[in-house]
């Protein structure tokens, strides 16, 4: 491990707590993840790419990426409106609405999945109106997008709320006193400040949607090449005892998640730099 020397704090328990934390982290998180990478690298280079770029796998990446992107975009637009309304306006029911924004976090994903399927199925509350219009939702990519929108919503709203609260009244007043209209103030003064957290929330929602499983499998229909997301493809491979195949696809997915995570950290770094330069 890293150099574990005494630090300058006179408090006791450093070796014990750090030792235990590192041991527990290694056993629960690092060792199993290492097993995944080992299994994936057991495949030869050409074998790895043959599995990773198999048409069925590529179709699943395309579907997962597309639906996750669409869901995150819907959340960026409506999440912005929701956060703006919840922070800046007072109206009856505001606190209740604010509390239920976290529902997608609190609700087990499988339960969200069957509830959404019930609503958007042909006989469901919303499905029965969309079906005659020629817009089937359940068991189509549109249904997957709806499930991924549900799951990503709190990320955008909760990331935007703190910066919206910190917006300075003086800034808006100054813009107004200089003759800017409300719309100009919004576009030129408020939006540039809110853009970095909006992007962060968008990226967090997107990252979460990429790996989502429980809320999607019920509404997606799970047809290979058509409505099969990447998470499900991993399970299919496991059920066929194709451990190497599952490990390879999982490694590709893990790589994508980490790349997005790195991007989010970069975004926040950029945001902080700008923030500091502006202050």
């Amino acid at each position, binding site marked *: 491990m890293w150099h574990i020397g005494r630090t300058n704090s006179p408090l006791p328990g450093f070796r014990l707590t750090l030792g235990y934390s590192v041991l527990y982290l290694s056993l629960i998180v690092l060792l199993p993840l290492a097993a995944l990478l080992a299994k994936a690298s057991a495949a030869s280079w050409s074998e790895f790419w043959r599995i990773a770029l198999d048409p069925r796998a590529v179709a699943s990446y395309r579907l997962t990426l597309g639906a996750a992107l669409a869901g995150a975009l819907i959340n960026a637009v409506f999440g912005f409106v929701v956060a703006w309304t919840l922070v800046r306006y007072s109206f009856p029911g505001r606190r209740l609405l604010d509390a239920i924004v976290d529902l997608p976090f609190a609700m087990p994903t499988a339960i969200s999945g069957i509830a959404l399927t019930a609503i958007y199925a042909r006989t469901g509350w*919303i499905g029965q109106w969309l079906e005659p219009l020629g817009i089937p939702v359940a068991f189509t990519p549109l249904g997957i997008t709806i499930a991924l929108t549900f799951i990503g919503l709190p990320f955008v709203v909760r990331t935007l709320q703190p910066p919206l609260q910190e917006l300075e009244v003086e800034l808006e007043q100054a813009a107004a006193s200089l003759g800017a209209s409300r719309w100009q103030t919004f576009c030129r003064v408020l939006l540039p400040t809110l853009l970095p957290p909006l992007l962060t929330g968008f990226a967090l929602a997107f990252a979460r949607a990429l790996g989502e499983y429980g809320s999607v499998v019920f509404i997606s229909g799970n047809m290979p090449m058509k409505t099969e997301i990447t998470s499900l493809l991993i399970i299919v491979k496991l059920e066929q005892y194709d451990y190497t195949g599952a490990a390879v696809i999982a490694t590709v997915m893990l790589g994508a998640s980490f790349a997005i995570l790195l991007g989010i950290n970069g975004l926040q770094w950029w945001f902080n730099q700008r923030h500091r330069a502006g202050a």
Partner: protein
Amino acid sequence: MKRTPTDMPPVAATHVRENDPRWVRATLIAITVLFLGIFLALPLASIFTEALRKGIGVYLASFRQPDAYAAIRLTLLVSAIAVPLNVVFGLAAAWAIARFRFCGRNVLLTLIDLPFAVSPVISGLIYVLLFGLHGWLGPWLNEHDLQVIFAVPGIVLATLFVTFPFVARELIPLMEEQGSEEELAARVLGASGWQIFWRITLPNVRWGLLYGVILCNARAMGEFGAVSVVSGHIRGLTNTVPLHVEILYNEYNFVAAFAVASLLALLALVTLGLKTAVEWKVRRDRAESAASREGSTP
């Protein structure tokens, strides 16, 4: 990933600014209510409607199945093991990270967040690759007649993994913010490490800890993807409540599926209620302490 929505959102009522024109306000409020209504309230309502479709008698009968009973017991058992283990880890990690400066501290912080970035399915898969028959430890376990995958230990491990960061990431920022002055004072006065921990640190972080435990427990009881990979779906033995719901649903036994699901929906509502209550309590305490500080320094 320093700030994600599991951190306490500092929502307060003092930021209301109603200087937008009335029609803009009305439109945005309408969009918010509609969007949250369709995407959040409707799914919640549909669970209870579907569950009660055939009356309260059929609803209650769904819980009297031995399989449902076994699933509830297993879910309670798994979270009773996973939550305390992650609480102990969270406290240890917060003590080490928030009270000491050491080389590799930032690496450790990033690694603690790692499970949140891993898809639930992959969180289950890694244990299959480690403990399964074709995995690293599988042959050894098999020789000694131990079973991890498709058994309760695997379900506990997968749950530990997906709930790993909850408590730690609540406690670390909180303890950093509070600083160690009180603990150092106790040390100077001759208190032992355990005395400092039980009498000062733990009481100081109790609300943050409770908040982390609430979120950790909700996820532990509701986890689906990771548990589904390692469970093997053996009825009455390795089915947790979410897995039991899936089986009922796939058998077209919709009323029973939604009835059992309504238990978890209730758990989600209780979680949201407790979470909001803790947030309000913490905010009020903070406002009070800020007010008393201002009052004491003229």
